[in-house]
């Protein structure tokens, strides 16, 4: 039993070596292209808790990030049939899920009305790394990438206007904050060649960065409601993207 599993491992390793050596003899499909799609925040960043605190400030890890759009450019040079190095530069934006946030402030201050206005999260990424391509059927390849680099992210600017008893009791603000941090992206997908020069790529990726934002607030005169002065939760997302690429070198 044990010798059989050892034999299997050896066979897999030999197979991999064979693919690599074979791959070194040829060059794979280097490309440059654009990509765009949907980015789905995960974890605490995507949470949108109703936070009410009538006496004292409340800190909550909810990020209130909605699904967003993502787009960018990427390219890779394949130094062998299957492996290449390249980079992805992209930009993503996410609207803020302000309804539960706003309802929490209304309840915290026990007022007639709260009007909450917010911008969104913005993330710029530059992620170099390794690319993999394995032709599986005619023009179709399975692709994968493992990228690591930097991410520049910014949080929404949020303003809350409080009205009660016919009076406008003023507006308080959570200021926009930005930070650059390490980021990584792991993904897999399918690539379909169209003609000699083009390919259509469908990819799914997991992206993660963890900027430790320091957040400024203004006009928080009384201790009540949600107040965050830092946000150190991971900004992680599953990205589903469709792209078109110009293929060369094969």
């Amino acid at each position: 039993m044990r010798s059989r599993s050892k034999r299997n491992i050896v066979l897999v390793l030999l197979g991999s070596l064979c693919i690599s050596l074979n791959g070194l003899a040829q060059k794979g499909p280097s490309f440059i292209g654009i990509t765009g799609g949907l980015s789905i925040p995960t974890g605490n960043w995507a949470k949108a808790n109703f936070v009410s605190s009538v006496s004292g400030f409340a800190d909550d890890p909810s990020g209130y990030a909605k699904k967003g759009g993502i787009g960018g450019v990427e390219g890779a040079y394949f130094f062998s049939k299957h492996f290449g190095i390249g980079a992805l530069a992209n930009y993503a934006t996410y609207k803020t899920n302000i309804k539960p946030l706003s309802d929490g402030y209304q309840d915290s201050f026990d007022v007639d009305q709260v009007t909450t206005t917010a911008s969104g999260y913005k993330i710029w990424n530059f992620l170099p790394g390794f690319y993999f391509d394995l032709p599986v059927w005619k023009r179709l390849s399975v692709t994968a990438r493992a990228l690591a680099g930097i991410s520049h992210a910014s949080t929404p600017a949020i303003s809350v206007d409080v009205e009660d008893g016919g009076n406008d009791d003023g507006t308080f603000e959570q200021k926009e904050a930005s930070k650059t941090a390490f980021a990584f992206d792991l993904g897999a997908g399918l690539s379909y060649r169209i003609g000699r020069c083009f390919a259509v790529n469908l990819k799914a990726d997991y992206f993660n960065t963890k900027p430790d934002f320091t957040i400024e607030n203004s006009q928080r005169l009384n201790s009540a409601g949600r107040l965050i002065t830092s946000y150190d939760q991971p900004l992680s997302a599953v990205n589903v993207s469709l792209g078109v690429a110009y293929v060369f070198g094969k």
Partner: protein
Amino acid sequence: MQKIFFAPRKYLAALAILSLLVINGCNKKESTVSPAPPGNETLSTVELVYQNAANPSDAGVAIWRQLDLTEVKPPDTSLAKVNLKANATYHVQVIILDEVSDAPKVDSVTPEILDRENYHLFFFQPEPVAASSVVISITTPYIPVEDGTVTSATGPYLNLSVARTDLDTNNPPLQIGLQDNFTTGAASTGSLRVVLRHQPNAKNGTYAPGSTDLDVNYQVSIQ
């Protein structure tokens, strides 16, 4: 044969810029309004529970009551009378009840105000009062002249001063007014106006910010 020049990289660059503009354009500011849910309590009854600090048997309750939600009928002030001894100090507690919403059950609203102490502030104004006695600061409970206090140049004055004794959890702490000390002087009569200000994210110790949750009057007799 005519050559067709096709520059895919240029098209890709143009598409990339276009897609970034579209993505950024989708990220405009959003706004939402959160109104208060229905069913807030009614502040129908305000009690001043007082006790002489030097003589606990000298105690009383003054009750102001408005059970008519339409406020067409005048409030019941038959029990809104504070009887104090001259030259004494009284510990006073303000109790607010809702005798309307859940009648015949009586709900105390005081714990809720205490919960929300960081944006509630009571004011007390004895009248008649000399202008010089209406000292306005973040630690005095008096109501500015522009907010309805009538001063008298000649008197006779109601010889009563009020000091709040409880603090909220703001930083720095501000007074609340659910617990107070009334200090009397010589025998006199007049009225005491009690106002509760709701100052959401605006409480700073002064009367001005916010709105009025209740505004009631008591007759005061100092013997």
